[in-house]
């Protein structure tokens, strides 16, 4: 199987969480004997080649982060440049991720993605949905390393699964999302303890980035 992967994130590849997810996923593809081409929409110079590959291949995966409850605007712009009819049948599948860990947050975008392939003359190959990806960028932080390595390794397994099943329409892919919403006990623990820890972590990251203002600063008041 040869898979065309298009990274729909606007963030430059070097810092893209989506790219980290893709890199883990393709390890699984390669381990199962498949090959791939990767294009990143954050680099406009790759758009023509990405479009040409979309038209001439039959296995296409868009990987994207959730932006304001749906697809990032840069990816919507790219999608508008694609032909709506095609001669070669193709399957479009998706890897959708987001900062928050609740599956529910990603479901509306997933619904949009389900409706998309038919509008581009393709069939739908399912959507791999998982949140909690904000910290991927912080994986060099010692405290986050273990959790994030485990998270990314799970994508490698899904790469293998994609090759053996040919799509993400499997029980395994369905379960990949994890909880739809946090149970009440998490809400309680969050209020009591976790919130403070999370705030401290964010403040630590900000300090590493050279931030000198409070994170809840109101610069335009």
């Amino acid at each position, binding site marked *: 199987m040869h898979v065309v992967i298009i990274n729909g*994130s*606007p*963030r*430059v590849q070097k*810092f893209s969480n989506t790219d980290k997810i893709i890199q883990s996923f393709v390890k699984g593809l390669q381990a199962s004997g498949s090959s791939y081409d990767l294009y990143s929409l*954050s680099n406009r110079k790759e758009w023509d080649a990405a479009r040409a590959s979309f038209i001439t291949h039959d296995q296409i995966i868009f990987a994207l*982060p959730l*932006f*304001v*409850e*749906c*697809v*990032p*605007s*840069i990816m*919507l*712009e790219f*999608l*508008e440049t694609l032909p709506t009819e095609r001669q070669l049948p193709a399957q479009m599948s998706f890897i959708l991720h987001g900062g*928050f*860990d*609740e599956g*529910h*947050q990603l479901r*509306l975008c997933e*619904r*949009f993605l389900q*409706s*998309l392939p038919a*509008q581009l003359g393709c069939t739908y190959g399912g959507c791999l949905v998982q949140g909690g990806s904000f910290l991927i*960028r912080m994986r060099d932080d010692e405290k986050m390393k273990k959790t994030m390595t485990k998270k990314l390794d799970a994508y490698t397994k899904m790469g293998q699964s994609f090759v053996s099943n040919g799509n993400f329409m499997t029980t395994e892919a369905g379960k990949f999302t994890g909880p739809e*919403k*946090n149970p009440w006990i998490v*809400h309680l623990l*969050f*209020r009591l303890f976790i*919130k403070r820890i*999370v*705030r401290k972590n*964010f403040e630590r*990251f*900000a300090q590493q*980035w*050279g*931030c000198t*203002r*409070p*994170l*809840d*600063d*109101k*610069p*335009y*008041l």
Partner: protein
Amino acid sequence: MKTIVLNTLEEGCDSEQISTLIKGDDMEIINTSDMKIAHCMGCNLCWLKMPGICAIKDDYEGIIKKLVDAENLWLVSDTRFGFVDWRGKRVMDRIVPMLNMYVEFRDGLERHELRYHPLNFGLLYKGKADQEFLEEWSQRVASNLAGQSLGVYHIRKEGKPCM
């Protein structure tokens, strides 16, 4: 109640038409078609390096400053693939500095804290789209901004709303 209307249409609905569709005592319509606005690049600098300030220096900074004084935000957008088109989505993706990095539970879901105050959100759209989908999207956008959805309305060809 200050209302900001972001009109992202390339053509087909001018300020006069919009002001007959959306009622507001203190309303400002901003036509974004001739403004320089880039896609949000998800750099997170507005959350972690220069809190509240977007790293992209273009015409959107003026919009953020206006939103800080507003209570209602309307998006006027064309549609594609059943959803708002990339021009409409682009001005929404750039709204991130209105929130901050901290998280809390709101309406039972993880949400970012508001940097300023709640914003209500409404949508006027042109073209063929999935009304039900847009209603849920607007609801979710409003919920992120801790505001209410002001509704989703289809602008008919002759510029009349389907209200």
